[in-house]
């Protein structure tokens, strides 16, 4: 924990090697969150790059009361949520984008078939709850960390997660039992 805070201090001084180290430590987990939120591998990489760049540029604003991972996830989810907004308005404008077209877009981050139902069911979960689920399950973040990352109360985190999971259970149940 403290080692990582030291790493952030080095990054704040413009230390490129420390930055590379940080990016390597967190790159995989950040990519997993972004990939699951954005669907496409290319968009996920783009989001992680932007988040890391913002982290590098804004490292001097880093407050050591924050865990480095929480700080990074805050920056990354801010980037991803904005990308989701852009996508929503773009889809509304572009009448040609059918569900099939959207599936094709996310094709390069295609989930294995076993997760296809879950992937679709997640699409029915409201955005904020989906973001929380991704953070919760990629890195096992605590309710407190989730609250900090999204700027909400712990009670809201709990109710959002519960609601998201209830919706998932309902959707998965609806799709019928018996798939592999």
């Amino acid at each position, binding site marked *: 924990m403290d080692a990582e805070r030291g790493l952030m201090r080095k990054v704040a001084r413009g230390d*490129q090697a420390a*930055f*590379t180290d940080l*990016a*390597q430590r967190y*790159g*995989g*987990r*950040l*990519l*997993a*969150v972004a990939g*699951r939120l954005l669907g496409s591998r290319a968009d996920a*990489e783009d989001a*992680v*790059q932007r988040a*890391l*760049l913002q982290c*590098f540029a*804004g490292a001097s*604003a880093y407050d050591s009361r*924050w865990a480095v991972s929480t*700080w990074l996830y*805050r920056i990354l989810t*801010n*980037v991803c*949520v*904005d990308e*989701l*907004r*852009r996508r*929503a*308005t*773009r889809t509304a*404008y572009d009448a040609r984008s059918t569900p099939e077209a959207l599936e094709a877009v996310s094709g390069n981050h295609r989930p294995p078939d076993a*997760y296809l139902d*879950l*992937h679709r069911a997640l699409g029915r979960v*409201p*955005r*904020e709850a989906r973001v929380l*689920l*991704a953070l*919760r*399950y*990629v890195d096992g973040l605590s309710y407190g960390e989730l609250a900090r990352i*999204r*700027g*909400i109360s712990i009670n*809201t985190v709990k109710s*959002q997660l519960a609601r998201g*999971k209830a919706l*998932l*259970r309902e959707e*998965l*149940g609806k799709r019928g*039992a*018996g*798939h*592999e």
Partner: protein
Amino acid sequence: MNDVVNGAQEQGAKQDKLDRLLADYFRPGAESAGLALKVAAVVRTDRELERLESRLVLEATPRGISLVRTGKTARSATATARKLTEQAREEIHEYLRGQRSFFHVPLDLSEVPDFQRRVLEAARLIPFGEGRPYAWIAERTGHPRAVRAVGTALGRNPVPLLLPCHRVWRSDGGLGEYIFGARVKDRLTALERITPVLEGCTSTRIVCRVGCIHGRHMRPDNRVVFASVTDARSVGYRPCKVCRPAA
């Protein structure tokens, strides 16, 4: 494995199954190699937009900003008009730094001919960070085939930047021409792609449009981006009464 979930099973067992499924689904892959290096390579030293800003000249009437151009010297104006140009400069400054997603300063298009004004009003409807083809504008002005005339009208936009003619692109995906040059259009498009539109303050639980006066003094670690006002409301934020982000 068989995923049959029958009603007789305990709630706890169901939860465990969903938890396991979610954990497997979200498991990170081991594919981050090289990412850090790529990121380091992207750090840019592009000064295109700063150069543009330093050359901007603005004119205003008491009703609003009437001209944004480069290089010329501005006409002397009334005190009200000077105040407006100052405000516009400030807003453009923030916009070009990714700290503003809307303009508040009024525009004065009263000298603009009717067809051109309709073209400009249509361009004004394009949301921040997005683009529409010239034909989209033509349709909205009631002359769907007047695509070329639309291009000309946009090219003579008296108040570029403030009125987003840079959000009108060619239908083949190319960005097309721009009053300040294609390179600037390219930079503006990239800039709007990375500037968020809605941000909430974690200490006040208020969601604002980026650039609202309330957001100006927000600490960086208090900023949370939202995709919509509905999303923000769903987790306990309320929209700002000054910038009115619901609109």
